[in-house]
């Protein structure tokens, strides 16, 4: 009966075109909303995800990764003293103002890490190496920041919070959630670059365990002993950060609602088209029944039409997004798309369209084939 579904769809080209346009736009909207949301969450949690640590210790009541408050760095000794801890390291996260060549300034996010261990260092380098920041006022800036900061040339000297730093490396694709350019430098210089984090203070202590299976016990012990700090597992801190931006700021909810609306619009378009199609072709379906078709045979026709519409519309929308992806990202909009997202949204779109065909199926159930004898 898929044969009949296809023939009917192709026969009514105008209707097919309008339905496909609707689903295509719905797909584009859903994919961009979900992709941008995931892209932004990816940036918000990038440093946590790319730092090889099992445990994150932050200031008390921290809301998310970007809003760290300083605390005494000597607390690292309490962490290192735990037998299950393989290593512990300090990490500074602060903010500063970078003077631009045109005299203006731009707010930047500063990450200070230990260049000897490389914990918290940029994970993707275009030019130079993470260890290049060692031994002086050296910094690495992300290449994507050129849009905000102007041309980034290795060896040039920049003024950051009235201190001069030499650009020694360019990282690739590392952005912050706030869209501020990310600057990496050595831990010691990050401590002194601005008043927020003072000497002998840190923003984070990160730790790696000898045996990750003991993570719950270690976190519990640390929480008990470090009353002035919050202790998270890596996943817990990612979740905390994502939830902050998603729920507390309402930002994620905005993306979520738009994506749901787009899905609903796609479903409504298919449902409305399929229903109108069913009502227009009731006599044909009645004829099918008279000729010996079971209700299930006719359901197959209706569901196939919904599925074909959804499948083709989604495919066209996805191809469009894949082609437009580069331009979107070049415009500075984070867009995270993976095969998993495409497959998941495909099944959601198919399901939405099949559900929207349900009302047509209900109409068929009560269709009396006697109608075929009415002229």
């Amino acid at each position, binding site marked *: *009966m898929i*044969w*009949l579904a296809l*023939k*009917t769809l*192709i*026969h*009514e080209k105008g209707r097919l075109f309008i339905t496909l346009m609707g689903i295509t736009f719905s797909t584009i909207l859903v994919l961009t909303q979900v992709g941008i949301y995931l892209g932004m969450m990816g940036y918000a949690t990038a440093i946590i995800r790319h730092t090889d640590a099992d445990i994150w210790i932050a200031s008390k009541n921290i809301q998310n990764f970007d809003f760290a408050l300083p605390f005494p760095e000597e607390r690292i000794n309490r962490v290192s003293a735990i037998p299950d801890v393989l290593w512990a390291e300090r990490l500074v996260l602060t903010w500063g103002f970078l003077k631009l060549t045109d005299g203006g300034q731009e707010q930047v996010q500063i990450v200070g890490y230990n260049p000897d261990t490389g914990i918290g260092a940029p994970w993707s380098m275009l030019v130079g190496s993470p260890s290049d920041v060692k031994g002086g006022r050296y910094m690495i800036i992300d290449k994507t920041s050129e849009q905000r900061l102007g041309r980034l040339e290795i060896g040039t000297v920049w003024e950051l919070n009235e201190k001069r730093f030499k650009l020694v490396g360019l990282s690739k694709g590392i952005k912050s959630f706030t869209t501020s350019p990310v600057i990496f430098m050595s831990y010691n210089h990050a401590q002194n670059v601005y008043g927020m984090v003072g000497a002998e203070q840190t923003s984070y202590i990160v730790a790696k365990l000898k045996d990750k299976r003991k993570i719950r016990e270690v976190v519990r012990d640390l929480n008990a002993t470090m009353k002035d700090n919050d202790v998270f597992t890596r996943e817990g801190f990612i979740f905390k950060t994502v939830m902050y931006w998603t729920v507390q700021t309402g930002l994620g909810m905005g993306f979520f609602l738009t994506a749901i609306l787009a899905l609903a619009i796609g479903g409504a378009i298919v449902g409305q088209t399929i229903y109108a199609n069913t009502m227009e072709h009731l*006599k*044909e379906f*009645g*004829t*099918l*029944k*008279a*000729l*010996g*078709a*079971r209700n299930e*045979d006719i359901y197959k026709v209706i569901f196939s039409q919904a599925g074909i519409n959804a499948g083709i519309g989604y495919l066209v929308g996805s191809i469009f997004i894949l082609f437009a992806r580069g331009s979107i990202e070049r415009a500075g909009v984070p867009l995270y798309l993976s095969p998993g997202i495409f497959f998941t949204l495909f099944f959601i779109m198919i399901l939405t369209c099949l559900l929207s065909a349900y009302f047509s199926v209900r109409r068929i159930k009560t269709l009396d*084939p*006697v109608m*075929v*004898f*009415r*002229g």
Partner: protein
Amino acid sequence: MERILEVKDITKVYQEGNIRVVAVDSVSLTLNRGEVLLIMGPSGSGKSTLLSMMGCILRPTQGEVIINGQVVSDLSEDTLPYIRRQYIGFSFQSFNLFPSLTASENVEVVLRLKGLNKKRPRQKALNLLEKVGLGERVDFYPRDLSGGEKQRVTFARALAGDPSIILADEPTANLDSKTGREVLGLLKDLAVESAKAVAIVSHDPKAEALAHRIVFLEDGRIK
């Protein structure tokens, strides 16, 4: 002659609010292989209702419909499509062809419903259309066919499932006089040639000459 269909004392009553309408009232008749039965009567006499019950599309309020010795009027809604596929071919007054399908595809629908594989339906549909004189117009859509040609397609479709019974509702109603005579002749030839039992509902006097038997229906009763 072998009896293929029998209706025994069937009645169809429609209840519309407080009004009780008896569309068919205690009708009994039989239909044999190779026979053309003509059911005549004025509009509203219950002809199409009777045909619907004979075709297992409508369940009688009372009485029995027996096909090939089996009482089918009591069968469940799930079983009736199988009976229709197996035993009955329909030809409708307004043709009821699928506008999105070509003549051959309209015939193929029945074959596909019967679960034939992908290659055979096309060939069989072409043979049937050849048989009804439409061999040259197999790939035409209904909109490009004349009334007479459309009716021929419905005959081919009715024959497609190789049913024992063909039920035709007003086959000449939308045709001119000459074409009407042609399609009636064709229907009779098909019935005799392939030993089908044919019941035609019509008030076209031309049909009388072709029928083996005629029953007149008035106010739901046989006169």
